[in-house]
């Protein structure tokens, strides 16, 4: 049964139980929102989406008012517009006027709204919120003075990520978003996934900016500055430069990075292949020696912290493999250093990641040898975009270039790491090879592709049935772990990505609220895979050479020293 309503005089149909926002949008009108988030509980907090409904005394929020048959909705009546304008003006009164210095400049919903509503003068005297900057964590910077209390970060952290590191504290105009006891994020249970940063409409949340350190290193003649870029970067970076979502800018990125002065450009997809070599061997070994199973993937650092904090019982299940970023970091400062004849201490190793938690991962004490960190700085997609703009480089006009050897080659198995389910698919391709001596007939594992948060499949390799799952979003991961503890799920191998949908939707990716954009990014990765020449990690010739010349074989003593790590329970305020 469709429900007919009118929006500004036009008849539209709404689904039963549907909130007004959707039919209003279908009718071709846009009502602004700040606190609304797809898939989150509507709280009706920001009141920006208020509309007039014939016969009702006050204004109603379109995000939280269900459509009723015959409703006559006016989305832009003078009353509604006046209310919206006043709301934005009230927010501006408490906002520090430092847009020009803000990490969110140009990508800020509040700025957009002020512009859209034509606010040209200050109606309410300035009354800025006190500055209580929290830069205690290695990944995320919080500036509560810019917070408008829409609560999207709180909901994403609790409802989607299942972490609940932050919540509303205080009351009335003293209300603030805070970690427990108003303490710093560094001692909170935050897993640094950065989903809150993505959700935040203003500059209250941002990544810890590392561009300064990288620029400094680039200018230091003593240093060899190498850079790696994660599998998903090439299909998301273009958005920052006006290219359509999902456009692969791999070659342009390499060209831009060289122009910025990086001495070597490596591809993290290469070390994704390396990870697969190690991880699929580990899987096979665990299958052969009886566990512990299920094996849990370890390339997503937010997830690792999540297990260490909330589910330390599962630490033995985590793959001991370092993430591709850290594996590459380790071979750069060892093998590459030797090949190039550079003292490891004179290498400054930068990673471009879709992720804020990678900043934390790079800073983990386990990720350094003899006082030298494997990775010196991590930049998010957004940060590298800023640097490219800062460097006056017109990305779209560049001629594509190749990444550098010896770590520039990749298979498409490494490339699909960027999409949720990709690691699993890549690992199974390789595991099949290890167990049977040939790649699987059916390379594509459609069951674990797609946007669902928990995807399960059963695959048969060498007569053995494997129950596998690809899980994304730590909230979903928590559910799976709890169900396994309760004996409701039995699995052999689980890929977990901290961010819903995987790295394409990482906390460091270009801002977008459009789920279609995320889908386009995913499709781009699978398109590359489909047309890929080499689709199984072991076919990567640079990988083969690396083993031949340096590492020996997967799970060798050297691999263990350089490519594997250990985890321990983590005491945080939780």
């Amino acid at each position, binding site marked *: 049964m469709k429900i007919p309503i009118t929006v500004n005089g036009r008849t539209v149909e709404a689904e039963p139980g549907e909130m007004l926002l959707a039919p209003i949008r279908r009718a071709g009108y846009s009502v602004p929102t700040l606190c609304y988030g797809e898939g989150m509980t509507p709280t009706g907090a920001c009141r920006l989406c208020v509309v007039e409904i014939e016969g009702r005394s006050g204004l109603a929020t379109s995000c939280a008012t269900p459509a009723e048959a015959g409703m006559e909705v006016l989305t832009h009546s003078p009353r509604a517009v006046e209310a919206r304008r006043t709301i934005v003006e009230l927010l501006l009164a408490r906002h520090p006027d430092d847009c020009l210095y803000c990490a969110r400049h140009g990508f800020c919903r509040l700025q957009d709204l002020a512009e859209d509503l034509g606010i040209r003068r200050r109606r309410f005297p300035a009354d800025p919120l006190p500055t209580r900057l929290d830069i205690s964590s290695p990944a995320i910077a919080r500036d509560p003075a810019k917070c408008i209390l829409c609560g999207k970060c709180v909901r994403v952290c*609790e409802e989607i990520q299942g*972490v*609940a*590191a*932050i*919540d*509303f*504290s*205080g*009351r009335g105009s003293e209300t603030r978003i*805070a*970690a*427990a*006891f*108003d303490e710093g994020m560094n001692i*909170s*249970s935050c897993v640094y996934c950065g989903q809150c940063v993505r959700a935040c409409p203003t500059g209250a949340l941002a990544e810890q900016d590392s561009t300064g350190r990288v620029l400094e290193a680039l200018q230091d003649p003593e240093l060899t500055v190498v850079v790696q870029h994660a599998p998903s970067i090439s299909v998301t970076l273009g958005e920052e430069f006006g290219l359509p979502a999902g456009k692969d800018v791999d070659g342009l990125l390499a060209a831009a990075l060289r122009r910025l002065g990086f001495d070597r450009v490596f591809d993290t997809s290469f070390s994704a292949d390396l990870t697969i070599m190690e991880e699929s061997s580990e899987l096979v070994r665990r299958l052969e020696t009886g566990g512990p199973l299920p094996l849990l993937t370890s390339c997503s650092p937010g997830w690792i912290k999540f297990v260490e904090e909330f589910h330390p019982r599962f630490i033995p299940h985590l793959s001991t493999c370092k993430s591709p970023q850290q594996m590459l970091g380790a071979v750069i400062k060892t093998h590459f250093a030797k090949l190039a004849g550079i003292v490891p201490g004179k290498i400054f190793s930068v990673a471009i990641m879709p992720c804020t938690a990678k900043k934390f991962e790079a800073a983990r004490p386990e990720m350094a040898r003899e006082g030298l960190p494997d990775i010196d700085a991590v930049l998010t997609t957004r940060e590298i975009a800023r640097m490219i703009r800062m460097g006056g480089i017109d990305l779209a006009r560049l001629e594509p270039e190749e990444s550098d050897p010896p770590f520039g080659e990749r298979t498409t198995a490494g490339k699909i790491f960027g999409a949720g389910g990709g690691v699993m698919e890549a690992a199974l391709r390789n595991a099949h090879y290890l167990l049977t001596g040939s790649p699987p007939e059916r390379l594509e594992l459609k069951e674990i592709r797609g946007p669902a948060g928990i995807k399960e499949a059963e695959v048969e390799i060498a007569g053995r049935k494997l129950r596998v799952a690809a899980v994304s979003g730590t909230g979903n991961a928590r559910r799976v772990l709890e169900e396994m503890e309760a004996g409701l799920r039995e699995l052999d191998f689980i890929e977990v990505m901290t961010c819903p949908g995987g790295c394409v939707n990482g906390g460091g990716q270009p801002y977008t609220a459009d789920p279609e954009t995320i889908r386009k990014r995913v499709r781009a990765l699978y398109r590359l895979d489909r047309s890929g020449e080499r689709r199984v990690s072991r076919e990567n010739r640079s990988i083969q050479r690396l083993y031949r010349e340096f590492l020996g074989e997967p799970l060798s003593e050297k691999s263990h020293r350089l490519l594997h790590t250990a985890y321990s329970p983590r005491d945080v*305020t*939780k």
Partner: protein
Amino acid sequence: MKVKTGPEKIIPILAAYPEAGRDSLIPLLQDVQEAEGYLSREAVVAVGRHLGLPAGKVYGVATFYNQFRFSPRGRYHIQVCRGTACHVRGSGTLLGRLERELKIAAGETGRDGLFSLEVVSCIGACGLAPVISVNGEYHGHLTGDDIPALLEDYRNRETDEDD
């Protein structure tokens, strides 16, 4: 079985809420504050752990309500009613006088730990406005000039009790 950790004193309080759900959060915090006089950091974490709630969430709830304090209160806890009737009959003057006499602001505890001062919403004794309550003892129809003697009275009790 949930692990029960936290300050000694609150273990029996938590034990009184076995298998409790989130709806026991506020009663639990109230009981803990009743026993400890305030909510310590450890207590908040322990209560959260008992109920399976993140500390940030417990803290968020506790900071929402006027009742909860995060620092110990004085031996004599003075609550100044700020209801309408008390306001129009001069509770602002009372509060100002108390702050000056005690040299603390509302929400604070004096250095000697003897008095703490708090502004509360209507106590509901409007007929006797303005009203203050000291450790639950009500004093109505006060003026600013009654304050010094009143405080002196409590200070003397303190010495009497010590004797």
